[in-house]
């Protein structure tokens, strides 16, 4: 064994000379993200990894702080006219694109227009907009047809699609085509020449970025890049990512699997950080077009059949990271409410059976799509099957990988001919914190997402919410939306789970935010 060991150590010594970081004086943060970066346009796709990429290289007009409040980011100030129909925005001094050109109001107007043509919340906001105009290099206005609370909610939206600012020449790209110029004004510059999908994505510090003077808080405040270089390493195997973290080959894992956290906690060189904002919410989505889920009473039986604890424990398995929460708009957030939820989600089998009997359920098998390859979702469908069968449903659970499910859920064919009745998934909390951004509440029939709920009352409530600029009144409307959602059942929230991040103890400055960001983070040399 000794000669072998000596040979290896000799090779290790030789390799040590060449395995070093690109420059000895540089600090590099090596991170494993939840997915590999393949697409680079955060307005063209809603994929979360592309959103995270967006936060690296682009900046936003507004941003959410640690408490979830919307703060100025690229803006010096904004004013609202007395009739609440004209918003005037003024950019901060010294903002600069990565190519050295100044950020102008025209750039921002073009960026908002492109975002508003793609994003669901942006489209809603846009329906209130009469015009958007650049007044001078630093000032632009949004003129509304009627007052709405959606301007700040939209421009401060933290998750996909985020209204990132791009240079006018880039933002004028057809919204249905991907951008090919990745010039941003954020704290990091994308190194396209070093981007190797399936291997690594590289960002370097933008030396000319002018951070705000306030300390960093959530996604807002001073975005100070404290490392010279960030590398996203594409390690798809969770166990291997954990091994690499333990050995110090990487510094950070965005979404370590919950079942591997126990081992990581025992490592003296690793820290686990739980952010109350980095959480997800499970949800059950029925297909309103297919019998028997076209019958509201059958759908309501599900509220009694299910309980959140079973779903959470089967998937997360650790009580420390789960929270039973019946608030549709996520617990501990501005629009959280439990109104209408009394007696629901308690696995009241008797009540569920009564409802099915009243509805005249004829035993039609429910085609339940079961995603098998994403660990965070794998055990949801088997739990749903078990609880539904106890309530009297007949369930045909069909297993498939997530990408097959994604393709199949767009089909309106009968469930026994390639269509479907239901599936389960998870939302990032930041995406579902109000009635407009919560996409599954969209009940505009053909125009709604797969599942196609159709309800004029729900749409009116969502419009009322969009029109209402007063947060207190918005809260009341959000309560009414939740009550209507229980009657309509476009989806059923199945509890929340925390998604901790894991990193070496040499890494400091991780920010509590709904999206993992890399400014303010530093690595001890």
């Amino acid at each position, binding site marked *: 064994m000794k000669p072998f*060991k000596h040979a*290896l*150590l000799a*090779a*290790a*010594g*030789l*390799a*040590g*000379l*060449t*395995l070093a970081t690109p420059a000895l004086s540089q600090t590099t943060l090596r991170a494993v993200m939840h997915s*590999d970066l*393949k*697409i*680079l346009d955060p307005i063209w*796709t*809603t*994929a*979360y990894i592309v959103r995270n990429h967006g936060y690296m290289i682009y900046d936003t007009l507004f941003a959410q702080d640690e408490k979830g409040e919307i703060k100025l980011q690229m803006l010096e100030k904004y004013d609202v006219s007395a009739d609440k129909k004209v918003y005037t925005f003024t950019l901060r001094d010294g903002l600069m694109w990565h190519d050295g050109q100044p950020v102008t109001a025209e750039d921002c107007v073009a960026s908002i227009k492109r975002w508003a043509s*793609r994003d*669901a919340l942006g489209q809603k906001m846009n329906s209130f907009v009469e015009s958007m105009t650049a007044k001078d290099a630093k000032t632009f206005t949004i003129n509304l047809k009627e007052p709405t609370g959606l301007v700040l909610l939209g421009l401060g939206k933290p998750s*996909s*699609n985020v209204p990132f600012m791009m240079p006018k020449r880039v933002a004028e790209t057809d919204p*249905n*085509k*991907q951008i*090919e110029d990745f010039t941003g004004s954020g704290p990091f510059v994308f190194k396209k020449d070093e981007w*190797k*999908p*399936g*291997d690594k994505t590289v960002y370097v510090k933008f030396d000319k970025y002018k951070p705000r003077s306030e300390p960093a808080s959530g996604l807002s405040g001073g975005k100070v890049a404290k490392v010279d270089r960030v590398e996203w*390493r*594409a*390690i*798809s*195997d969770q*166990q*291997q990512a954990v*091994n*690499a973290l*333990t*050995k110090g*080959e990487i510094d950070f894992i965005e979404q370590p699997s919950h079942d591997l956290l126990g081992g990581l906690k025992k490592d003296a060189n690793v820290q686990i950080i739980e952010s109350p904002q980095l959480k997800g919410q499970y949800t059950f989505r029925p297909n309103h077009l297919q019998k028997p889920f076209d019958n509201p009473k059958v759908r309501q039986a599900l509220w009694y059949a299910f309980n959140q604890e079973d779903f959470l424990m089967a998937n997360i398995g650790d009580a420390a990271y789960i929270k039973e929460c019946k608030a549709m708009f996520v617990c501990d957030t501005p629009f959280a409410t439990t109104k209408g939820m009394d007696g629901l989600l308690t696995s009241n089998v008797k009540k569920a059976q009564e409802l099915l009997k009243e509805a005249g359920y004829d035993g039609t098998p429910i085609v339940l799509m079961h995603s098998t*390859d994403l660990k965070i979702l794998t055990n949801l469908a088997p739990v749903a099957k078990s609880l539904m069968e106890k309530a009297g449903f007949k369930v045909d659970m069909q297993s*498939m*990988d997530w*990408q*097959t499910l*994604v*393709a*199949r859920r*767009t089909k309106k064919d009968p469930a026994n001919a*390639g269509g479907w009745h239901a599936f389960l*998934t998870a939302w990032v909390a930041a*995406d579902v914190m109000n009635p407009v951004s919560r*996409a599954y509440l969209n009940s505009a029939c053909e*125009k709604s*997402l*797969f599942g196609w709920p159709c309800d004029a009352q729900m749409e009116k409530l969502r419009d009322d919410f969009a029109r209402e600029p007063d947060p207190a009144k918005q809260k009341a409307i959000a309560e009414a939306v939740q009550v209507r959602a229980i009657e309509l059942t476009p989806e059923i929230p199945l509890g929340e789970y925390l998604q901790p991040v894991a990193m070496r103890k040499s890494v400091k400055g991780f920010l509590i935010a709904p999206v993992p960001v890399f400014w303010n983070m530093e690595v001890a040399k």
Partner: protein
Amino acid sequence: MTLFGYILRRLIGTIPVMLVVAVFIFLMLRLTPSDPAAIIAGDNANAEQVAKIRQQLGLDQPMLTQFFIWFGKVLTGDFGESFFFKKTVAALIAERIEPTLSLSLFTIVLAVLIAVPLGVLAAHRQGTWVDRLVMGFAVLGFSVPAFVIGYIFIYVFAIWLNWLPVQGYQRISEGLGGWALRLVLPALTLSVIYVALIARMTRTSVLEVLSEDYVRTARAKGQVERKVMFRHALRNAAVPIVTVIGLGVALLIGGVVVTESLYTIPGLGRLTVDAVLARDYPTIQAVILLFSFVYVMINLAVDLIYTLLDPRIRY
């Protein structure tokens, strides 16, 4: 028939094979219930956005039209652009070929260097504990999946002993030492099954020739046992061993898919997995065509090596 004529005939014979592969892989992908446009669009995308992406990718056209457009381009050497990576498939493959070639060569060299002496030793010591140990290892090597072996090696050599890195690949241009060091564990992992396969075949072939008259004659002439084994026995047993090695090289194509994914090596195997998961049709089609071509070429190479090892073989 001359050797040149034989090679030409075999090369022409690859054309229908590749054509069948092209049709088969195209149909397999299109008939699989999946939609790259829905994947690209992301979870929050609506039906209209997905439809627009489908249109941009040309996936809204009839399947036959899609096939002829793709196949026409392939005939001109254009494998198209990846749906996801915004790069040509040819560029993607060129980027990924070095890690895969490195891993494959490293593995085969390692496997041959370990397996052939082991097989000869087992044959020489037939029926002893050495023979049983080698054959026991061979059975184990066949039976345990590569990812299980990989995890065991990682735990022992990278985590427990801390001798080797857990994952990753370093290009040769960035330093030979780092390149070799990062390949040791993946190559060891991948070589286990080939060591088992080649050692077993070597033992059987050598045992067969050991009972031949010329071996008895060599021994009678007083040749030392080492020379008998390596000069007379092994050389005459080489044809089936080379066949197995050739088969092993072809089988490596499957092996690199698992091993590259486990060790985060950005090679063709990893590209295949990523492309399949993302339903990146142009990339999957090109990689499968490439793998098929390599498979056919390896078979041809093995047939040609026969003539070198055994002058009696003529085509």
